């Protein structure tokens, strides 16, 4: 009979667990009575009623078992009596990964429903941390964590791209306002406020940076952004890696201290706010000497103090508010967003349940980076989709970038007729500037940046040659029509092979690339474009109906694409994104 030996990884995990045990954690480990009261508080349970493995205490028991086997006297003497056990093999760890990362978003809803005060979400995060420490984690989490460790931000945004984007946004503001006084200050020593953002804003949603800049300008704020330590997000929260969590926090804190600012304003991001404001001082073991606040609080303060004026009638569509789990349950941030929302929108409809009892958007806990669990995530999103549909809202407002992605995904999946916005967008929309604005009306905020006016529109891509790759003829025709209207010349291709041949021959200025195609698909073609010296410098904008492929693309050992858009694309958004990418390329020469 062979005796099973614990794998090296398991031994390392057990040693690490001992270091992670605090009184509070141990109380949660020993305090569960398996009463099942938390069962129906979990969105996974409610959408998978026949699968008992989604029950919160089962997930927490995965850590509890290891704890009992190693630290609890009954568990050590009579393990079978209290179900104490440890994983033995690396396959066991893979199974554990599937539970800790794939069946829980660490939303803390069950914690708030446990009569014993058991913090299941924290226990699950510890399990993730143990697994991450031995390299067992979803690929997406590994890649993003690596970027955060090595490049300093979770999306691997290069410094020049970040600065280019800030410059581009400053120029946009200058065009709109007719002067450059609203330009985004960078590394301004002695500024009172440092504004830290989510790299997603640089990569996919720069209008939020522009909107924030406009609001700071209107409020007469003495503010700055920074060249380093600008990423307020923190994958340490998701991976359970306290060390990474501490490092990320410290990067931001040190930069704020270097500027000498009184206040760090954190853009609307639930996990970023929670990490930077509430967790990282503990992970890093530092006491922070300046004020840290969410931009929601900042904007609310500006309105209440009369530093900015808003006209709520500019946001007259019905809006509802989705509480980010991290903002609400983990940071007590319940009323301020609602107060602000009521000041900038006319028709606010609560969704139920809300605040501390709100359901996760299902994109929490880093779920958006774990594409292997997408079907599970979308299934569990039914609950949120029903919640939103019941409000009849046309706009779902949330103060979290993860939630924006999670909600957008479920809105598309369940065919809801609404869009997602952040408070910064609504405040910017409602902002009444004392001075005349060059544009006739405020930029429509449903596009990535202000839509080009008709006269400009035709010129937006004038002279550009665009390779449009998509296997669906309808889509190719649509994209061709939109881009030709903007002045571009189109080179169509229906699959990866044809696209490569056309690109080699014609050397287009930019490529729009579908991912899911018969024959050579978009992912393969993307890698070949990047690897070939003849095409490696051609910018590529992915246009796909599979947002979950994002990870697949960003995992490739080649530079990431310059743009990434989900289908169906909005015409203006497409034109503007391509224009922006081309302008950045031109600037870099």
């Amino acid at each position, binding site marked *: 009979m062979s005796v099973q030996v614990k794998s090296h990884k398991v031994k390392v995990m057990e040693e690490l667990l001992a270091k992670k045990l605090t009184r509070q954690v141990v109380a949660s480990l020993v305090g569960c009575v398996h009463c099942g009261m938390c069962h129906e508080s979990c969105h996974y349970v409610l959408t998978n009623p026949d699968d008992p493995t989604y029950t919160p205490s089962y997930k927490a028991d995965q850590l509890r078992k290891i704890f009992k086997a190693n630290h609890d006297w009954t568990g050590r003497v009579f393990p079978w009596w209290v179900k104490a056990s440890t994983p033995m093999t690396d396959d066991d760890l893979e199974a554990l990964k599937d539970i800790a990362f794939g069946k829980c978003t660490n939303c803390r809803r069950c914690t708030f429903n446990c*009569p014993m005060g058991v913090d299941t979400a924290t226990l699950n995060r510890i399990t993730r941390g143990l697994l991450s420490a031995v390299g067992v984690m979803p690929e997406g989490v590994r890649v993003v964590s690596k970027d955060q460790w090595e490049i300093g931000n979770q999306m691997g945004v290069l410094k020049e791209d970040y600065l280019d984007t800030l410059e581009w946004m400053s120029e946009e503001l200058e065009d709109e306002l007719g002067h450059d006084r609203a330009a985004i200050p960078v590394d301004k020593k002695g500024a009172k406020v440092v504004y830290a953002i989510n790299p997603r804003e640089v990569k996919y949603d720069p209008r939020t940076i522009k909107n924030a800049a406009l609001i700071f300008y209107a409020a007469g704020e003495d503010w700055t952004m920074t060249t380093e330590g600008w990423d307020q997000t923190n994958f340490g929260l998701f991976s359970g890696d306290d060390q990474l969590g501490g490092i990320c926090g410290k990067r931001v804190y040190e930069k704020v201290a270097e500027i000498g600012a009184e206040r760090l304003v954190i853009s609307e991001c639930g996990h970023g706010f929670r990490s930077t404001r509430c967790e990282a001082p503990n992970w890093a073991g530092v006491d922070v000497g300046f004020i840290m606040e969410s931009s929601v609080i900042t904007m609310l303060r500006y309105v209440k103090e009369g530093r900015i004026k808003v006209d709520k009638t500019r946001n007259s569509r019905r809006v509802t508010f989705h509480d980010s789990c991290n903002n609400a349950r983990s940071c007590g941030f319940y009323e301020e967003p609602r107060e602000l929302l009521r000041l900038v929108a006319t028709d606010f409809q609560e969704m139920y349940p809300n605040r*501390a009892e709100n359901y996760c958007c299902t994109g929490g806990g880093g779920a958006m980076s774990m594409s292997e669990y997408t079907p599970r995530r979308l299934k569990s999103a039914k609950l949120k989709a029903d919640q939103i549909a019941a409000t009849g809202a046309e706009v779902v407002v949330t103060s979290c970038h993860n939630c924006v992605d999670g909600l957008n995904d479920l809105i598309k999946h369940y065919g809801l007729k609404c869009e997602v916005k952040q408070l910064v967008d609504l405040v910017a929309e409602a902002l009444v500037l004392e001075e005349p604005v060059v544009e006739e009306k405020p930029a429509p905020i449903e596009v990535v940046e202000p839509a080009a006016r008709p006269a400009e529109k035709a010129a937006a891509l004038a002279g550009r040659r665009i390779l449009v790759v998509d296997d669906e003829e309808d889509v190719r025709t649509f994209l061709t029509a939109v881009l030709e209207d903007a002045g571009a010349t189109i080179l169509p291709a229906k699959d990866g092979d044809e696209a490569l041949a056309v690109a080699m021959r014609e050397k287009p200025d930019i490529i729009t690339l579908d991912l899911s195609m018969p024959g050579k698909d978009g992912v393969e073609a993307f890698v070949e474009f990047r690897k070939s010296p003849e095409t490696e410098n051609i910018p590529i904008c992915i246009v796909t109906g599979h947002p979950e492929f994002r990870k697949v693309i960003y995992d490739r050992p080649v530079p990431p694409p310059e743009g990434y858009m989900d289908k169906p694309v909005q015409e203006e958004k497409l034109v503007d994104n391509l224009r922006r990418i081309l302008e950045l390329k031109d600037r870099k020469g």
Partner: protein
Amino acid sequence: MPQHEPSTLLSTVEIIHWLALAFMALVYTIRLFWLFSFRGTKDRQPPGNLKQSTPMKGAIYSLGNVAMPWAMESTRRGWLFYLSFVIFHLGVVAGISLAFLSSLDRSLLEIPAVSTVMMVMLGAAFAVGVGRIIRRIVTPYLRLISSPDDYFSVILLTVWFLVGVFAQAYIAGKLDNEMFLVVYLLNTSFFLVYVPFSKISHYLYYPFARFWIGRTLGHRGSFPYSRG
């Protein structure tokens, strides 16, 4: 005036019961030292929302949560379960009172009203216990998370409640067999010795778990929590 003079057997069992209690107290003390041997944590971040809460407010709210079934969705929606929880735990209080009063001041238990209340509490707790055993066996997710200790603990307590009803009936003079009380006290003694090694010891940890989570979330402003 007591209706029964304690026999030598009963007196011996009473001594065993007190020894079991002393053992439990000792093991509990060790358990508490064990819990406190782990690192304490400090919330370094500044308070989250002083208008909304403080660590102390959060901790008090958290500790009081047990008496506020409206506060949590789980108890609000599962009011029947909450009710059963109350009955079950009142049964535990009755059972412990019975064990101690039977040797300290049995005359109190002989008062008819007290006797009736005790029997009703123990009987109701027994019924709830039976319901809990069935629920644990037939509910798939509970079966999945239950260990032998979970089953044994609820069965142990349920039997204890039932024997308690008979022991109380004996003390009240409604039954005439001292063995009911002897078995009850032996059952209690076993229970006292077993508890620190089982999940029943949750009541030792419970106040700490609730205090700490309440303090942490109170510091952040999310406890007491708001809902809608």
